[in-house]
């Protein structure tokens, strides 16, 4: 295992030290591993927190700041945070207007956020609403599974709901916007290599030199299929077509097109992929209203990429364009 770390057991707290040092406008509660806005709580604003296992950076801590998250709970690598963290974060950002919990749909995240919300409400009476993201079309959404995984849509949701909260909208309305984003977004990813969890020290799964894993999860969960390597244009089809078919996205729809790097894949390859995605969307008559290309929800050092499409209307687009000032997404301010 080759990583720039001190010790597998201190990766998360060491990285939090780095976040704190690099971003003076953010604060870190080291005991609870919570990154939060330095100006928290914002009186009268709905607070938004998220969190999850570490290893997906910049998600979630890199999205804390004006116009996006108020706080992020950092779990151990690939392990959801514990309820105490959500309690701490909820209290830190509660400005009296309630707190939205953005939760990716994994059993561990859902259970721990549920307990956190119960405990926070019991302790302080704060009103908490949770919105769960489940946009990964690689997983069948049936009663035979834990449901679809929350992946790329989470990034877009945090930005858009964050803008709604910044506008002063109430908790119910912010939660509605968030649910609308989740309902209109779909994702799928592919891994060229496995990630290596620091505490494990070797790759989570083995892939042949000429294989890739289609529909991989962001924790190295195996995907839909293991296939021989294909050129970027075919990979784009394998990722985009199932997304388009699922919602479905129709000719005339406007989307935010998001090509995400999984951690070990450099930007040049993401742009190669984006070109193919744009081509396929054009062929389907789907209009790209906005784009986002880069590593935003990663899986440690995994090589690979995911595609997320979010169908947008003028309202969602306006919220997307609103000012944001976080370590990883920033514009307008």
């Amino acid at each position, binding site marked *: 295992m080759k990583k720039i770390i001190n010790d597998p057991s201190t990766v998360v707290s060491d990285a939090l030290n780095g976040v704190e040092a690099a971003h003076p406008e953010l604060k870190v509660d080291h005991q609870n591993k919570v990154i939060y806005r330095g100006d928290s709580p914002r009186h009268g604003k709905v607070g938004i927190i998220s969190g999850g*296992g570490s290893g997906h950076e910049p998600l979630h801590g890199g999205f804390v700041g004006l116009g996006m998250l108020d706080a992020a709970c950092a*779990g*151990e*690598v*690939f*392990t*959801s*945070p*514990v*309820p*105490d963290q959500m309690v701490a974060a909820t209290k830190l950002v509660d400005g009296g207007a309630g707190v939205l919990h953005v939760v990716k749909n*994994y*059993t*561990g995240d859902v*259970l*721990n956020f*549920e*307990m956190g919300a119960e405990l926070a409400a019991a302790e302080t009476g704060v009103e908490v609403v949770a919105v769960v993201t489940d946009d990964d079309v*690689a*997983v*069948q959404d049936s*009663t*035979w*599974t*834990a449901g679809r*995984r929350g992946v790329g849509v989470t990034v877009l949701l945090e930005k858009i709901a964050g803008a709604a909260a910044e506008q002063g909208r109430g908790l119910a309305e912010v939660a509605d916007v968030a649910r609308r984003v989740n309902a209109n977004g779909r994702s799928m990813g592919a891994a060229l290599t496995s990630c290596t*969890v620091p*505490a*494990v020290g070797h790759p*989570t*799964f083995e892939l042949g030199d000429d294989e890739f894993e289609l529909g991989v*999860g962001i*924790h*190295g*969960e*195996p995907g839909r299929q293991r296939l021989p390597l294909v050129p970027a244009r075919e990979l784009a089809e394998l990722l985009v077509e199932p997304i388009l078919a699922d919602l479905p996205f129709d000719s005339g729809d406007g989307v935010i097109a998001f090509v995400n790097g999984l951690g070990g894949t450099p930007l040049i390859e993401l742009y190669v992929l984006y070109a193919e995605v744009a081509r396929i969307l054009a062929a389907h008559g789907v209009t790209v209203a906005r784009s986002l290309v880069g590593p935003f929800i990663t899986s440690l050092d995994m090589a690979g990429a995911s595609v997320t499409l979010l169908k947008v209307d003028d309202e969602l687009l306006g919220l997307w364009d609103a000012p944001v000032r976080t370590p990883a997404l920033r514009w307008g301010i």
Partner: protein
Amino acid sequence: MTNSVTGAAIDGWLRAFARLVAEHEDELTRLDAAIGDADHGANMNRGLTAAAVALDELAAGDPPPAAGPRLTKVGMTLISTVGGAAGPLFGTFFLRMGNALAEQETPTALAAALRAGLAGVVQRGKAEAGDKTMYDALAPAVAAVETALAAGGSLADALAAASKAAEDGCAATVPLVARKGRASYLGERSVGHQDPGATTVSLFFRAALDSGVAG
């Protein structure tokens, strides 16, 4: 002490559990790597290491606490330190066990506490038999304790039966298709792998045999 579930006996059981999980950390993680995200061993070991520290603190109390509070404390510690699916599930299991065991320390009370713990797991996780989860080891083990005691067996008999049932239940997860938790994403590809959480459950009952609790 053979037929009483004292605070010291529970302490021994829980510490034996922690030791077994530490010894099997890599194996649990390997199982989780196959159908999950390769963290179950580290998660449980982190939580049980913290639980052992909490048990030390409790044991130093005067008078030393009974079985119930020790289980409750371990449950709370697991909830606060494990994370993932296993944290709330194993945490709730011990929390509910501890709360149920508050008053009595008889084998029957232990059986009832195990049943309460199981109910907590189901309430949180909604797992059913055959979903390929910790439930598939835990539910038969709890039933085995009840059956053995009802048949007039000793606590030792009951826990031996539970351990056997947990191990069988655990082995029986291998051919199943996962329908809960992270492994469910795999559908048919989860077949042929043993569930990590069920494996941890079988370690828990094996720990009962290794420790003083079964006399």
